[in-house]
């Protein structure tokens, strides 16, 4: 029997995907001068008139990119998510509130910030990963998240 973790562990595709994300961040920064922090782009497209359409198009790209990938690879991808409405509503709200209060998410702090050696981003990343780990651990004790 294959161990679940070993079966799920995908270092190579994850590394390649990461490199592609890094390339997107650099191309976006070099050409437009803006950092590809998704929570910032989303917040700005909702609340800020400056570059609103460009921000909206970046978000549209985030949807179109996977669709093109699915089309060429004749797949529809794997998507497994909780069906608990409470978790979805609470989780979504906390992600929106937290990323804006903290000034960034996995992309803005985790990728852009860390690679610019920002102390704030390094702190933020350690904090959100730690709290994510604690949250998952607690939910597992109640049999939620297996």
């Amino acid at each position, binding site marked *: 029997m294959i161990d679940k*973790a070993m079966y*799920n562990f*995908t270092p190579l*595709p*994850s*590394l390649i*995907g*990461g*490199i*592609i*994300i*890094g*390339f*997107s*961040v650099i*191309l*976006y920064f070099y050409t*437009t*001068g*803006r950092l*590809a922090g998704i929570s910032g782009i*989303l917040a700005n497209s909702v609340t800020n008139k400056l*570059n609103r359409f460009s*921000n909206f198009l970046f978000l*549209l*790209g*985030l*949807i179109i*990119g*996977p669709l*093109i*990938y*699915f089309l060429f690879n004749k797949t529809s991808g794997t*998507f*497994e*998510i909780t069906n608990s*409405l409470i978790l979805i*509503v609470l*989780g979504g*709200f906390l*992600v*929106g*509130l*937290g990323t*804006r*209060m*903290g000034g960034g*998410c996995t*992309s803005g702090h985790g*990728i*852009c910030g860390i*690679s610019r050696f920002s102390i704030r981003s390094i*702190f*933020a990343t350690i904090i*959100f990963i730690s*709290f994510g*780990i604690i*949250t*998952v*651990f607690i939910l597992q004790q109640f049999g939620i998240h297996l």
Partner: protein
Amino acid sequence: MKDKILSLACGAIFGVGLVISGMTNPEKVIGFLSITHDWDASLIFVMGGAILVTTPIFFLLKYQVKSLLSARITLTEIKNVDRRLVLGSAFFGVGWGLVGLCPGPAISSIAFFEPITFIFLVSMISGILFNKYIAN
């Protein structure tokens, strides 16, 4: 016009990277956060791969003042770790652990046509608006 085309293209490239990396699947992110049970370390390779590319280039572009499309580059250089950063990142971490979606994959999730992700998106935007409301 170029700015808009590049924004769309960069978003699409980013989205393809997310799908290939596996991070568009919330269960895989939960697997990374589950360090005591069937830990899946893949997310480290995603962040590592991205940082491997961005670190040297950001270093080279450190003193760049104008972008290729001649936009003025203004990076905020706030240095101090304040209460908002700590509290906000903690909130984000909890929300991330509850569902396994962060903002990028949450938007890309529309490509999977799962109705429940729209509820997540609406909640996430409410959180963004709530932060703007309490910040004022």
